[in-house]
């Protein structure tokens, strides 16, 4: 029950927001993320948005791992 799903914020209304979870729309609570804005990605748990995903950080880790993949001949991991 702990697997949070990333969802995109479509509409904000008071303490609730309409979000898109992989194409499905649902209403979630946003009490714990007061700084939320449209088009943010949030992690949902038990019907509440718990955190706004830091896209810069997410993309940075993705970039880091991509570089590791691309540099196949070098052994980055054990250096």
């Amino acid at each position, binding site marked *: 029950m*702990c697997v949070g799903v990333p969802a995109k914020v479509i509409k904000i209304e008071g303490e609730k927001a309409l979000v898109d979870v992989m194409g499905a729309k649902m209403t979630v609570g946003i009490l714990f993320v007061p700084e939320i804005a449209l088009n943010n990605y949030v992690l949902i748990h038990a*019907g509440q948005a718990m955190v706004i995903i830091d896209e810069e950080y997410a993309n940075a880790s993705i970039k880091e791992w991509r570089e590791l993949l691309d540099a196949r001949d070098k052994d980055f*991991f054990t250096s």
Partner: protein
Amino acid sequence: MLETKIFSHPELTRRLADAVAKSAETFIKREGRMPAVMEVCGSHTMAFAKSGIKTRLRDYVRLIAGPGCPVCVTDQKAIDAMIRLSEKNNVILCSFGDMMRVPGSGSSLLQAKTNGSDIRVIYSPSDSIQIAEDHPDKEVIFLGIGFETTIPALVAAVREAEKKGLTNFSIWMTTKLVAPVLRALLQSGEVELDGFLLPGHVSIVTGKQSYRFLNDDYQIPGVITGFEPVQLLSGLLKLLNQLHEGRTGIINDYTYVVNEAGNFTAQHYMETYLTRADEEWRGIGEIRGSGLVLREKYARFDAKKKFNVLPAVPKKTKCRCGDIIRGVITPEECVLFNKACTPSKPVGPCMVSSEGTCAAHYHFMRED
């Protein structure tokens, strides 16, 4: 656009797994044994088994499942109490789906529902508020289980009930906190551990700083990590690197959702509505200050205070979930595993829960 496919990229996963194995070999040569790593969270346990990483690393890293499956650690008495309450004819009981098949001392919530009790499976605690509004003549009780990730959602429901002036809604709080149980495990010394993979989603609420005690009091390292194969392996690799370098700090390897101090707003609401209490853990017993209950000011929403239920005597079985939760044995060491106990006929919660260690081993690591 958030691109998350890379987290389960097969080639990257394979390369990272090779790197972890190689790093672990160095440890094994030096120490004469495999590094022992506890993944605290039940979702990590399931992800390790499902992705095949646990099997791949079987001879390199001793991955020990920890106490972070909320269903597995819920005391049998709570389920018994819920069943008794559900038998009252003015009660609607609401629960997360995972709890339905967990055996109490006599039966389960699912059996109680089959016998006619009004028990509803809900996804969000707030859904039970709607049910309470729709049924003003009924008492709506929510079975409030969970760790720090879920506790704010329970608080949100109480706050909603308060704002709407509901008098027919209450929560049976049986929540659990990560730090006290980790302390209890380390103090017992039952399991030799070299480090922890720390729960990514609990850490969203508590922050990296909540694990400082691991370093300060026990000199044991930890890495906060996510749930995809690449994230699990990256976390393991960073943990092994710490062991090689003799460092015991906490690394946050899930930076795009976890920060240093956690979610302040969630912490503020938890502090406003809840207070620390001693909590019973299934198979472990009572741990001081290891749970949160409603403050006296909100006693009207506290099902334990609102309804008088006598606890049943726990049924003695050969189930060894308690030992599994503490990391003392593996499921295969339980005589009932894959014999009397299977997911379709579970004897204990570790086989019922979608995050249970016995279920993970049954579905993904069985050798028959």
